[in-house]
C-alpha cells in the first residue's frame, strides 16, 4: 500500500472558485506551457452538482446526487495535441497534468522560451447572471413530488400499464476556460430533463413507450411541466402499439413526424458535417461545399441560440460564442461544424461547436440544436401523396456507421394506405446511407418542432436538440419481419 501524500490546502492553492482571482495562477500555468514550446495551451476547469431521480409506480426508487470537480488540459503543437484530465484541482495536480500533456508532445517546461504569451483577456463571465440558477432549481422535495405526480397521472389513464416510470435529472455545471490565445471565460449551465416510460401488457401482448423532455437555462422547467398532457400522449401511444403487428420489410416511401423525427437528419447527415469526421476522412461530403447533396426541398441549420433549447449554450467548451450555422440551403452544402482542433486540421472556420461531456474529454466539433427548416406543405399533404408506405410517428434511437450507413428504430409506426393512416405496426427499422437518402427528402411540411436528446460521440454524451417538420422520404429500406 502506498502512503498517501497529504495535500494541505494552506500549502497548495486549490482551483475551487472559478472567477478572475484565478487569473494569475492560470497565467502561470499557461506561461509554463508556452515556455515548453507549445503552440496553444488550454485549461478547462469544471465543477458539477447533479441529481438524478427515479420514480417507479407510486414510489421514489432512486435518489442519486453526484458532485464533481475536474480539469482538462490540452496542448497543441502543429496539428497534434496532447490532452490530460484530472480530478486534482490543486496547483500541484494541474502542474502534473500539464507536464504530462507537454511530455506527450515531446515538450519540457523551460526548454524553449521563444513563444510569446501576452496574458489572458479580462474574464468574459457568461455565468454572472446565472449564479442563482442552482438555488432556484427544484430541490429534492419538490422534484420527488413532481415525479410521483407524473407516475400517478399515468396510472389514471390506462389500466394496462404494468410499469410506470418517471425520471428527472438536473445537471448543473460551472466551467472556466482559459487558453494562450487570450480566451478567459466562465459560464454556468443548467440542464434539466424528465423522462417517462411505460410498459403496457394485455394477455400476451406487450408494448413499451417513452418520451423525454429537456431544457437548458430554465430553473422553472420542471415546475412548468404539463404532466397531464405528457401522460395522455404516452398512454395513447402505448395503448395503440399494444396490438400492433410486425411491419413487413421492404422498400417504401415514409413520412417522418416532426420533433424527434429529426434524429434521422442528426445521425445520417449532421455527424458527417462535423470536422471530426472530415479529419478522419470518413465523411462522404468532404469535397461538397457549394455542391448539391440533398433535395432542393431541404435546408438545415445547427445553432446554439434558441431560448431554453436543450442544445443551447452561451459559449462552447472552448470559450467561443455559438453561431447560427446554415448547413444546407435548398439542398446545397454551405458549411461544416468546427471546433479548434477541427479548424487546425481541416481549415474549416470555428463555429462555436467545440463541446465535451465533461472535463475528461477533449472538446470536439459537435451538434447543438440541429433541424431541417420547415416547408410549405401541411403534414396531411405528405401522407396523402403516398399510396403504400409507412408513417413514423415516434422514432427510437439510431446510429451512424463510420462511412455514413445509418439505422433508426421506429417506436410508433402506422401503415399508409391510399393516402391515409392505417393500422399501427411495430418492429420497423429505417436503414440507409446519408448520401442516398438526402436527395430523396422531397417534401417538408410547415410544422417545425424540436425535441431534446443526448448524443454520444468522441467527446462523450452531450445535450442536443433534434428537429424537423414532417418530411417525406420517397424511398427507404424498412427492416421488419
Amino acid at each position, binding site marked *: 500500500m*502506498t502512503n*498517501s*501524500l*497529504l*495535500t*494541505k*490546502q494552506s500549502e497548495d492553492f*486549490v482551483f475551487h472558485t472559478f472567477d478572475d482571482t484565478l487569473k494569475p495562477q492560470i497565467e502561470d500555468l499557461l506561461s509554463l506551457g508556452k515556455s515548453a514550446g507549445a503552440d496553444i495551451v488550454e485549461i478547462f476547469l469544471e465543477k458539477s452538482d447533479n441529481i438524478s*431521480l427515479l420514480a*417507479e409506480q407510486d*414510489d*421514489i*426508487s*432512486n*435518489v*442519486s*446526487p453526484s*458532485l*464533481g470537480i*475536474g480539469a482538462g488540459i490540452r496542448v497543441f503543437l502543429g496539428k*497534434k*495535441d*496532447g*490532452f*490530460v*484530465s*484530472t*480530478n*486534482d484541482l*490543486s496547483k500541484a*495536480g494541474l502542474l502534473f497534468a500539464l507536464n504530462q500533456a507537454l511530455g*506527450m*508532445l*515531446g515538450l519540457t517546461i523551460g526548454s524553449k522560451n521563444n513563444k510569446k504569451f501576452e496574458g489572458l483577456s479580462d474574464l468574459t463571465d457568461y455565468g454572472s447572471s446565472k449564479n442563482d440558477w442552482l438555488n432556484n432549481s427544484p430541490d*429534492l422535495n419538490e422534484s420527488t413530488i413532481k415525479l410521483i405526480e407524473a407516475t400517478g397521472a399515468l396510472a389514471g389513464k390506462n389500466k394496462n400499464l404494468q*410499469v410506470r416510470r418517471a425520471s428527472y435529472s438536473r445537471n448543473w455545471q460551472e466551467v472556466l476556460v482559459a487558453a494562450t490565445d487570450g480566451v478567459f471565460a466562465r459560464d454556468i449551465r443548467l440542464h434539466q430533463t424528465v423522462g417517462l416510460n411505460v*410498459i403496457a401488457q394485455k394477455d400476451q401482448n*406487450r408494448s413499451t413507450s417513452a418520451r423525454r423532455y429537456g431544457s437548458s437555462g430554465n430553473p422553472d422547467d420542471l415546475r412548468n411541466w404539463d404532466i397531464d398532457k405528457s401522460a395522455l400522449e404516452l398512454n395513447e401511444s402505448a395503448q395503440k402499439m399494444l396490438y400492433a403487428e*410486425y411491419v413487413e*420489410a*421492404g422498400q417504401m416511401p415514409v413520412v417522418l413526424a416532426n420533433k424527434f423525427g429529426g434524429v434521422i437528419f442528426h445521425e445520417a447527415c449532421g455527424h458527417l458535417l462535423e470536422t471530426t469526421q472530415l479529419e478522419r*476522412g470518413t465523411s462522404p461530403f468532404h469535397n461538397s461545399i457549394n455542391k448539391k447533396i440533398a433535395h432542393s426541398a431541404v435546408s438545415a441549420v445547427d445553432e446554439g441560440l434558441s431560448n431554453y433549447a436543450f442544445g443551447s449554450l452561451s459559449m462552447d467548451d472552448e470559450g467561443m460564442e455559438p453561431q447560427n450555422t446554415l448547413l444546407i440551403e435548398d439542398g446545397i452544402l454551405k458549411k461544416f461544424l468546427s471546433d479548434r*482542433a477541427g479548424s487546425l486540421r481541416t481549415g474549416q472556420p470555428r463555429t462555436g461547436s467545440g463541446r465535451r461531456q465533461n472535463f475528461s474529454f477533449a472538446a470536439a466539433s459537435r451538434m447543438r440544436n440541429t433541424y431541417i427548416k420547415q416547408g410549405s406543405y401541411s403534414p396531411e399533404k405528405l401522407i396523402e401523396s403516398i399510396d403504400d408506405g409507412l408513417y413514423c410517428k415516434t422514432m427510437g434511437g439510431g*446510429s451512424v*456507421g*463510420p*462511412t455514413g*450507413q445509418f*439505422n*433508426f*428504430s421506429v417506436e410508433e409506426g402506422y401503415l399508409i394506405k391510399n393516402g391515409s393512416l392505417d393500422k399501427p405496426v*411495430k418492429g420497423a*427499422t429505417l*436503414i440507409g*446511407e446519408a448520401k442516398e437518402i438526402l436527395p430523396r427528402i422531397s417534401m417538408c411540411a410547415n410544422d417545425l418542432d424540436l425535441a431534446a436528446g443526448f448524443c454520444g460521440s468522441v467527446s462523450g454524451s452531450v445535450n442536443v436538440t433534434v428537429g424537423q417538420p414532417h418530411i417525406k422520404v420517397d424511398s427507404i*429500406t*424498412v*427492416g*421488419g*419481419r
Partner: protein
Amino acid sequence: MNESITNQKLSELDPFLLNNLLEKFSKELEIFKWDIGASSSRDISVQVQQGNAKQLKGSQRNSMTLRVWNKDNKVGITSTSDLTSDGIKKAMKVAIQACLFANKKESPEFSSQAKYPLKELNSNIYSTHSIDELLSILKNAEKKLIDRHHSIDSVPYNGLSESYMERIYINSEGANRHMKLSQSSIYLYAKAEEKNKKPRSAGGIRINSNLEDLDIESCINETSDKLISHLNYKPIETNKYLVCFTPEAFLQLISAFSSMFNARSIIDGVSLMNEDSIGNQVSVPNLNISDEGLHPANVGAFSFDGEGTPTQDIKLVTNGILTNLLHSEATARKFGAKPTGHAGLGAKVSVSPDWLVVSKSDSDIDKDESLSIKNTVKEYILIDELSAIHSGVKASQGSFSLPFDGWIVNNKKKTSIDAATLAGDILNVLKSIVRIENEQIITHQGISPYVWVENISITGEA
C-alpha cells in the same frame, strides 16, 4: 486542513486514510452505518493518422460513491469525484439529505458476504510504456494494416492504451476490499474503398493485462481479413434464412437480453422472465449459459462487486433450463437466494453480468449435426457483428431488429452483404437453434462457440 486521500504522483487510493476520514465524519454527523465504493484509474492512450500522432490522452481519475443509513434505516447516497476531506464531508452531508427521500419499500443492507474470503486473481501491475513507444507500436500497426491491400486507404478509428485501475469497498462493519489491475488494449477500425463502390469498413479489438501480451498481429489480421472480405459485396433478398452467429455476435445478442437473467429487472417488471421462471425451459436443451467473471480470460476481472460480495461463477441456463439469476444483496433477499457478486452500488442497486460463457450441453443432440463453419456447403448467412443494439433491442418485449455485418456463404464462398438487418424474438431464436458447435472461442466480451439458428428474418435491399 484539507487532506487528499490519493497519492498525487501515482493517483492511488489510500483505504486506510479513507476509512479514518469516514469514521471521523460519520461520528461528527451521527451516522452509524455507511459504506463506500471508491475507484481510481490512470490511463494513457494514443491515436494516429496516416503515420502521424493525432491525439494523445492521459487521465488521472478518482471517484467515490458513499451510502449512509439514517436512524430510520433509510438509505441515501452521493457520488463525488472530489476526494479531498472537504469533498468527502460534503458528500456525506448530501447523502444524509438524500436519506429523507429513500424508498421505504426496498432498503439495501450490507452484503452478508462482504467479508468472505476473496479468490486470488492474477492482478499483477505491469509497468507502463512511454508515449513514444506506444506511438511507434500503433504507427507500425496502422502501416501494416494499410499495406495489406491496395484498397485499404485509412484506419480512421484506432487507439492503443494502457491503464491502471483500482477499486475499494469499505463498510462501517469492518469490510475492507481493495484490488488493483492493469490493462492494455488496441482497436483498429479500417476503411477501404474501390472505384465505383461504396466505402467498406471493419475492425478488431484486443485486450490484455499488459502490452507485451497484447496480440496486435492477430488484431491486424482480423481487421484486414474482414475488410478485404467485405470489398466484394452484394445486396440480399428479404427472406428467412439459416443463420450462423459468430461467437462475438451471439454474445452480443445474449448480452442485449441479459435482463432475462437479472433479478433486478424481474422485480422491476422489465424482464422477459418473472419470479416463477426458474426451472422453465427457455431454449433448446443443449444450450448452457453461465456468467464467469473469474474466468482467466477475463482480464478486467475484479474479485468483488460494488457491495463487496465476492465475484462468483453462476450457471444461468443449464440444458436449456433457467437455473439461476444474477443478484445483488437486495434482490437475493427478496428471492430467498444469496448475492452472486454482480451488484453495483446505489440506493437502488443495479445488477449486471460480468463475463458470459455460452457452451454446448451434452444433454441432447443438435437438430442438425452436419452444420459446421468449416464444412457446410449449403447457403447460410454468417453474422459477424451486430450494430445499433441500444436502439434496435426491446429487451422487455424480447424483440430485436438490428443491422449487421456479415456474409452470405454458399459452397464455402463468402460474399459480403451490402446492408441488411435481422429481426426476431429472442425466445424464438433460443428455441430455433439447430447447432451449437463444440469449439468455444474466447472473445473480448466472453466465450461462445459458433451458433446456428434457422428461420431468421433478414431484410435486404435486393
